[in-house]
Structures are given as structure tokens and as C-alpha cells.
């Protein structure tokens, strides 16, 4: 059990709680229950929680499955820096958000679920987990001609070693730069070791 990232489960739980808050809030406001304004609050809180929790954080080990279309919210959530990165902040935030919804029966389920999510986030924060955004991989520009390998620059038939040395000394003096056609200009002096 050592490698569990609790934040991932907390994220699922919080997302579910957001949806439950929204549903309970709609029921309370549409039905005009007593104190239905708590229902209206619950809808707003639910939407906020859903938006915050929609972008999944990156797992420490292994690949992470992104939720569909999450890159837009990732950009927004990233902007808040430490407030969204730190899970202690999220734990406290969710706990506070869940309290007002607890006054109405229709939304009390959302309160309970969000409070549980807050608890799991607290556990995640204690274990040092953090929210890291999933960055899109930079597309590797295909380098035109990058895979073309140059043909060998001194193909056989090669003249014997002695013949190679003399013209290279002359050419090194005369040439302006870069190898040209004809005998190879070796940047490192090549010595013939055959005795």
C-alpha cells in the first residue's frame, strides 16, 4: 500500500461531491424547499468544485490518463500557483465550502461527500503529495533531412597512406575551408602504423 497517491482518489471523490452538490442544489431550488437559498449556494459551490477538480494532476509514477478536454482548465488552475498546488489548501477549502450546504437536507449528502474528500486530501497533503499539471508534450518538429545520413566521406578505393599524406599537406595550406572533392583532408593527422 506504500505507493498509493491518495490525491487521485480524493480528486475523484471531490468531483463526485461537486456533482452531488449541484444535483441537490437544483432539487432544493426547483422544489422551492424551505431555506432553498442554501440550494442556490450549493449549485454555485458545486460548479466551482467541479471546475477546480476537473483537471487531473500528474501521477508521480506512471502515465496519467487525462480527462477529456482538461487542458483548458489545467491552464486556469495552474495560474493560482501554490493555492492549487498545495493539498492542505484544498483540504481546508473543501471543508469550508461544504459547511453551508449542511444546513439543508437536500444538499447534506454533498456536504458529507465533500468533507470526506477534504479528509482524503488532508491525508495526501500529510504524505507530501502535490498537484502537478499535465503538460502537453512539445511536438517534435520533424527535422527536414535530419535522418539523411551523409555517405562515407572517404570511400574506397582509397590511395595508399603515403599518397594520402602529401596532397593533404598541400591542400591544408591551399584550401580555404571545408573538405572539397578529391583526397580527404583529415582534421586529425593520420599516421600509418604499418611498418
Amino acid at each position, binding site marked *: 500500500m506504500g505507493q*498509493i497517491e491518495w490525491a487521485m482518489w480524493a480528486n*475523484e471523490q471531490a468531483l463526485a461531491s461537486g456533482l452531488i452538490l449541484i444535483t441537490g442544489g437544483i432539487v432544493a431550488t426547483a422544489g422551492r424547499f424551505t431555506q432553498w437559498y442554501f440550494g442556490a449556494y450549493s449549485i454555485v459551490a458545486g460548479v466551482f468544485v467541479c471546475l477546480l477538480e476537473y483537471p487531473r494532476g500528474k501521477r508521480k509514477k506512471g502515465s496519467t490518463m487525462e480527462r477529456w478536454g482538461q487542458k483548458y482548465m489545467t491552464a486556469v488552475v495552474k495560474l493560482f500557483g501554490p493555492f492549487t498546488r498545495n493539498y492542505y489548501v484544498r483540504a481546508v477549502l473543501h471543508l469550508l465550502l461544504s459547511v453551508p450546504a449542511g444546513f439543508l437536507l437536500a444538499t*447534506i449528502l454533498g456536504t458529507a461527500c465533500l468533507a470526506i474528500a477534504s479528509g482524503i486530501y488532508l491525508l495526501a497533503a500529510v504524505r507530501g503529495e502535490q498537484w502537478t499539471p499535465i503538460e502537453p508534450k512539445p511536438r517534435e518538429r520533424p527535422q527536414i533531412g535530419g535522418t539523411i545520413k551523409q555517405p562515407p566521406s572517404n570511400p574506397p578505393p582509397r590511395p595508399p597512406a603515403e599518397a594520402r599524406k602529401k596532397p593533404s599537406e598541400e591542400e591544408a595550406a591551399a584550401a580555404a575551408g571545408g573538405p572539397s572533392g578529391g583526397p580527404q583532408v583529415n582534421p586529425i593527422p593520420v599516421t600509418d602504423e604499418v611498418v
Partner: protein
Amino acid sequence: MGNWVVNHWFSVLFLVVWLGLNVFLFVDAFLKYEKADKYYYTRKILGFCSRTLRKQLDHNLTFHKLVAYMICLHTAIHIIAHLFNFDCYSRSRQATDGSLASILSSLSHDEKKGGSWLNPIQSRNTTVEYVTFTSIAGLTGVIMTIALILMVTSATEFIRRSYFEVFWYTHHLFIFYILGLGIHGIGGIVRGQTEESMNESHPRKCAESFEMWDDRDSHCRRPKFEGHPPESWKWILAPVILYICERILRFYRSQQKVVITKVVMHPSKVLELQMNKRGFSMEVGQYIFVNCPSISLLEWHPFTLTSAPEEDFFSIHIRAAGDWTENLIRAFEQQYSPIPRIEVDGPFGTASEDVFQYEVAVLVGAGIGVTPFASILKSIWYKFQCADHNLKTKKIYFYWICRETGAFSWFNNLLTSLEQEMEELGKVGFLNYRLFLTGWDSNIVGHAALNFDKATDIVTGLKQKTSFGRPMWDNEFSTIATSHPKSVVGVFLCGPRTLAKSLRKCCHRYSSLDPRKVQFYFNKENF
């Protein structure tokens, strides 16, 4: 389309009947509360109320998920409906206008007067929240719903695949769910008029004259109500008993001794365990659940059996793919400590038992999905050697698709030995296999091109050359269709869903409309 129906008619029929029953029960219960006279006053105080019913039948994973979604849907409907109900009850209690609703609400809870109340909210000051948390129905409802939500959030595919223990242990909250469900209706909050009271003062006669109920000379008396007896236990009793029996069976099976006859450490951290258990008999492609108490008391993990039924042991190959497997491999690697005890439950069957019924079999194993085919190939080979007449299979096309062969070098060895044995028997055409490496780069291809003329493949050492990339199924299927124009071909896959989709499509496309000509039937392993 025709092929799909032929392959799936039983599941479709089962689902249609089950959904039909669900709809019927829902409508039936709904109409009962909507129309029956017994609930006339209940309706008056509420509006209408709906009751949810759901059945629990565990058939396999897909059905289990379907049932779970139904439960969630019905739970939502149930909760929303009762929220409206409670609000109506509350308003009725608060009403002071002497309306029917307020008089009905004032029916007392006092047991001495018969306890024939209708409105569960007893006094003006009682809030719905108070009733929720002090009534059995409300409290169990809240506990059940929270358990359900926790189970669902920890069972999403992402969590299940990445952190299995979270899913496994949280899912055991179902115990609280079932217990809560059994006692949810005990309080009898949903009430209908008693028989006696109906005979005395039927709502059709008396509802209009509710102001005069207390008059001594009126024909009508105050109606009396009784709670509806709890019914949910009737639905869950049978499945709960079945489940308990299954757990007892698993416990009994796990207590039986498993003797480990051989332990082999293959390259790339693959552990092979060959075991024996009294009374154990298997078929090809089945799997077992394995528990190792010294690593984790409660975790049971499934592994496909890689041995053939003809062998005198059964074996599994375990690859390091998580906490439990890594710990297990490490425990077996210790040379000086005693071998850990293993408990086995199973075997459980899957579709590959049908392999021998097809004249031509196309087996596709992708990645780790190649394991059931180890068992199948070995078994086919044994049957072939003994000239077993039950073996209808005349030809096998085996496609092995994986990123790199490292973790499956043991399977490689199996193919090599099969190759050799077939050559010795002179039956080289029986098994056609092709290996596709999808994780190739230009280096590997370069080497392959250079060694083109060698008799054996440089990557695997097999006579059959490795191909790179993914197979082109259209080509494969059309070749098979032309070589076997009159046969029934069974296609078996153990691999990812996308591959299943393309194979299924090819099966439909290349099956001839004439039932006497070539027919492809698709079977997918479900892990």
C-alpha cells in the same frame, strides 16, 4: 450485424429480460402508489411518491457495472423523491389552515391511541434533518448512500488500474450497504390506510367531509394508518446467500494444501510457479485467484494458468507489475528462507475453452494477453500428439503482438520447443505463428535487414521471422478466407479493446453471407 446477433443473442436476451423486469417493477410499484385506494391519503399529503426497486444479480463484471449504474440512478431518483416528500410532509405539518393535509398530519404518533399516524414529522418544530437522522430509514439511507458513493469513486477505471488496493478495500463497504438496505424499511414510514379503517371510512366516501370526522354523528371516522412492511430483504436475500456461500467456498478451497513443485525465475523478472493441489482440474485458458498470506492476508489476485490440462502440475507466470507481485517475486527470490505459503482458489473459466471446437483457429495475443495462449498451444500440442479425436482443429494461426519480447522470453522458449517438435513429427503446417514487435526502431530494423538470409530470426531465435509494426488484419483475414473457403474459423483475442474492435470488424467483413462458406466468429477474453 447478423454475425453479432448470432454471437451475442444470449446476452442480449438476458439483458432485455432484466431491463424489462426492472421497468415492469418500477411501473408496477409506481402505479400501486399512484392508484390504489390504500394510499389515497398518503397521496393527498404528498403529491405522489415513487419507490425504487432494484435487483442485484452478479453475473460477470460488465453486468455488475450495469447493475451499479442502475443502483446509482435509482438511488438518485429515490433520494430526490423522498426529499420532495419530506418537504411536503414538513409543509403539511406547518399548515394551519385546517386543510385535509393538516388534519391528516395531526394524527397522533401516540401509541396509546393506536399509533396510526400518517405524517412522520411529529411536531411543528421538528426539522426534516432531525427526522432524517433519527429515523431508521433516514439514517440507514445516509450511511448507504455515502458507502455507495465511496465505492463508486474508488472503482473508476483510473483508480482501479493505478491503485488497486484502494478499490479493493473500499469496495468492501458494500457490507454496510447491504446491511443498511435490509433494515431500511423497518420503520414503516411509508403508510397506507388499514383494511379495517378502509371498510369503516373509505376515502372515496369520507375524504370530502374531513372537517366532520370528529363529529359523533358522522359516518366517517378518522382514518387509521399502518406502515408498509419492509420489502427490500426479499430482493437481496437470495444474492446475499449466494455470495456468502461463494466466500465460504473460497475459504474452504484456500485451506487446502498447495504444494509448490517448481519455482523458475525467468528473465525480466517473471516468476513461474508450478504447483499441485489435490482435486484440482483445469481447462485451457482458465485462471485462478492466488493469495499469499505472508504478503497480504486479504488480497486475492487473478492469474491465467499457463500449463496445459494434460500436464501433471498447474503453473502460472507472474510478472512484476505492482506492489503485491513485486513482493511475491522478492519473497521467492530469497534463497535461504522457506518458500511462502500459497493459497489458490479456482479455476474459473473463460471463452478459450471453445478453441478446440473450431476447424481453424485464429489466436491473437497482445502483450500480457499471450498467457492464456501458452496453455492453449501446449494443450493443442498434447492432443495432436496423442491423435485425440476430439480435437477438431486442423490449423492454427497464432499472432503474437508485443512491444518487446523481454518479459515474454519464456513464451519464446515455448514456441521454439513447439517448432522443434512439429518438425520432428513432420507436421510443420499445423501451427502458423507470426510475431509482431510494435516497439521497434531503426536500429532493430537495420539489424534485421542485414541478417535477412539467416535461417533463424535474430530477435527471437525462432524459424519464423519477426515482423515489425502491427499486423494488417485485412490482408491476414482475406488470406485465411481464401485458404479455408468452407470452414468455420474461431477468432480468439486476449488484448486491448481497440484491437477487439478491429478484429470484430474484420470478422464481420470477411464472413461470407452464405452459412456454408467461411464464417468468422469472434471471442474476446475478459480480464
